[in-house]
């Protein structure tokens, strides 16, 4: 069945391409592949829908995950008018907690792909697992779908969870660069504070200071860095100079709106690293 649909849709795409090719004056945009560059990471089903989740790597990892999904009806058609929220929940031996998760919006330029981000601050293992619940409404009818998901540990530290000097628990995750270059990179990060075990809210107007270092090369730094400040998208953005490939430790300091350091220490000869940092290796 699915195979036939694929065949038919392939034929349709092919026909439309031919049509476009034959009519150069036609202004109809060629259909975009809404899932380009994404790999399937999980499938959650309930009695009415199949929800397929996608990420760039095809896995969920600790740290910032940009997650997209499509909702498919039993007949295979995609739902284009859903509104949804999600709740990731970590079930530990003794307690449960959630993690920062954004609102869900339609992927830009897409008609049936929804997305947002979730920041997993710890991986799942055989006894402690993550569960993702999706609550969504289609044409006024509410549905839920829940499934265990596997969250792998990132090979490098890309998320850090800590208590600031203001006794607030923060979660700071590296968003970009995902493919660092020997250049001035755009660096961005997401900053949340934990209000309860299940409530995480973005933090506004703080400053994240960075000091990239190469511990394997005398802990040298690099020029061209700019501290991260919040942008319109609520994420924090700055510049990161990387002078060579290899392993970099991005030492961090978190400053509140009054420029008080909440966490992190400056790097010096006596103090080779801050207590909060990201890692990059390329």
């Amino acid at each position: 069945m699915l195979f036939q649909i694929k065949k038919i849709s392939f034929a349709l795409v092919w026909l439309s391409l031919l049509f476009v090719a034959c009519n150069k004056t036609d202004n109809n945009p060629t259909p975009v592949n809404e899932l380009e560059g994404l790999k399937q990471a999980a499938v959650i089903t309930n009695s009415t829908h199949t929800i397929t989740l996608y990420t760039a790597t095809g896995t969920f990892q600790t740290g910032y995950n940009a997650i997209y999904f499509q909702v498919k009806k039993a007949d295979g058609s995609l739902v284009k008018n859903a509104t949804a929220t999600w709740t990731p929940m970590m079930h530990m031996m003794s307690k449960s907690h959630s993690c920062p998760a954004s609102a869900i919006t339609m992927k830009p330029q897409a008609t049936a792909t929804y997305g947002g981000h979730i920041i997993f601050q710890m991986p799942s293992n055989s006894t402690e697992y993550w569960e993702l619940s999706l609550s969504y409404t289609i044409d006024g009818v509410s549905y839920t779908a829940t499934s265990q998901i596997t969250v792998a540990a990132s090979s490098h530290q890309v998320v850090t969870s800590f208590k600031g000097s203001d006794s607030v628990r923060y979660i700071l995750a590296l968003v970009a660069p995902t493919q660092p270059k020997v250049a001035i990179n755009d660096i961005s990060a997401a900053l949340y504070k934990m209000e309860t075990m299940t409530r995480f809210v973005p933090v506004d107007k703080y400053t994240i200071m960075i000091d990239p270092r190469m511990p394997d090369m005398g802990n040298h730094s690099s020029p061209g860095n700019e501290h991260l400040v919040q942008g319109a998208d609520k994420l924090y953005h700055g510049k990161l100079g990387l002078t060579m490939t290899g392993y970099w430790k991005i030492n961090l300091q978190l400053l509140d709106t009054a420029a008080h350091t909440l966490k992190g220490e400056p790097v010096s000869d006596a103090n080779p690293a801050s207590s909060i940092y990201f890692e990059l290796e390329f």
Partner: protein
Amino acid sequence: MYRFILWLVLAISTPLALLAQKKTTPNKDTAHVSMEEVVVISQQNLSQKMEKPLSSLDNYLEKSSLINMVRRGSYAWEPFINGMSSERSVITIDGMRIYGACTDKMDPVTSYVEITNLAKANIHSGSAGTLGGATIAGSLDLVRKKSYFGDTQWKGIAFTGFETNNRQWIAGAGTSIIRPRFYMDVDATGRKAENYAAGGQKEVLYSQYAKYNVSSVAAYRLGEHRHVEASLIYDHALDVGYPALPMDVATAKAFIGSVEYVQHHLSPTILLSKTKLYYNDVTHIMDDTKRPIVPIRMDMPGWSKTAGFYSVLQGRVAIHEWNATLSGHHNYSLAEMTMFSNDSTRKDMFMLTWPGVNTDYGDLALKDIIAINDDWKATVNIGVGVHHNKIANTFGWESLQIFYPGLKQSKTRILKRLSAAMEHKGEQLIYSLALAYGERAPSVSEGYGFYLFNSSDRFDYIGNPWMKNEKSGNATLTATYAGAKLSVKLTGAYFYIKDYIIGKIQPGLSPMTIGGNGIKRYEQLPHATIFNSALDVNYYLTEKLTWSNRCSYRRGIGSDGINLPLMQPFSYNSGLTYAHSSFTADANVSGAVKHTAYSADYGERPLPSYAVINLSAAKRFAFKQQSLLVKAGVENLLDTYYTTFSDWNRVPRMGRNFFINLLWNY
């Protein structure tokens, strides 16, 4: 600049106007221009005077009072003309441009040839007189040794030498086939040396080297006044230690090839036309595997490829002996650095230290030697070059943008030069004054280098593509007296260099090199001045005995009051030479006074005075058409431990060394 040119034109036109009154007769002997200095290298016509006929090219060049050789080990010294680093001069091999492939100057152009390849080195001081391109300090052209068409002949040379201090073996042979319409020269030379010992038997680790070189020139005569010539040099040095540097060289390889078309007597006014196409390819692989302790292991290969041409017209019209040269070349320089983490699970650390830089250069040079009368001669040079750089490697371009956001990929510069010289030739006295203006573009390292470690001041250097051209005005005064008993030559050259390129500390930036002192970026001093002087005095005591003396002194000061590095303190050489028929003997002492004007800002330390004594003797034995030259001697007789201003990181010079050279001509 324009004020300087005006001054220059005025200075030249005044005597010209005065002399125009005199009746002028063309001087046949216009070839001699005292602004040029020649170092004779070829063994075939070697006078026995050279202390060590089979010494390296570096030793030969060091004999010129215009040149200092900066030493980082036993091998591949860097020629400094008029006290200025090699970026400020144009060094060519038979007019061919070659770019070294090492970011640490371990392979100056002069290291890719052998004395057997060369007949002589023509050295021009300042931008006066050079046809090779934009320069500040001067130019050095290494002239290929070659035969010429003639009666059928076959000749050859075989030579060998041994030196005790570093157990250096030198061996080689060359042969020439001469025909009326064809000639060919082939030669090969090999050298192998172990570590040398400084004075007091102190072994200098990592000072070994091995090198072999083969070369050939072949020419075919197409007509009475036309011929084509092809030339090849292959040079390969391996296992070269650099005791003054933190790394050695595994291999340094160059292939240098050219074809040339030559035509003589085109017309009564055009005497010679030459057009050459050339290509050279240099590969340089550094090596730290011989060093037991390094903070981090790394690979640092570099490559440089150059293709170019030049076309020369030479002629004579009335009192004018003129030369027009059109030349151009394209170079691509790339150098990598890969550092291996001590943690083997980590990825390698990679960067481009030369970000794949294209240099395209086109140049037109005009020269006119005007024989005003029997006594007076004027030389005028004018040249303009178009210099274009492009960062051809995207990885490298993005890397440099860390320091220069928005850096453009390309940069074009116009480089102008102008010089004029007057020479008066009397019975015994010749004097000349040359005034010159020249410009140069930053070198690949100065413009585009990325974390180049300087082991003298221990800073990482960053190139600066936004620098202006460096500009120089210079005046050179030469006076020569040649009497029956006494000859004296006095030279003084003064350089005023505007926008002088030099590294300046960038506070707050962290060095990449482990243990480095910081970051220096190439910047420009408002100006710098450099003064060079040399005095040669030869006294002919008897017909057989000559007392030769030479001293030189250089001083360089930046506009910030800082001493420029690598400037020669007052140095001298005094020797007695006895020559009787085929026997010569030589005893000399060379030394320098205490070096006080050293440059602490660039890692230099003060130096005590020193003096060393050298002795040698030679005898030529002739058997019919063949001859055998035997030369033996001892250098640094007293085994003095010493180091000079030109020894990088004050690496000591060689202690007592006995040598023997045997050259058999047939």
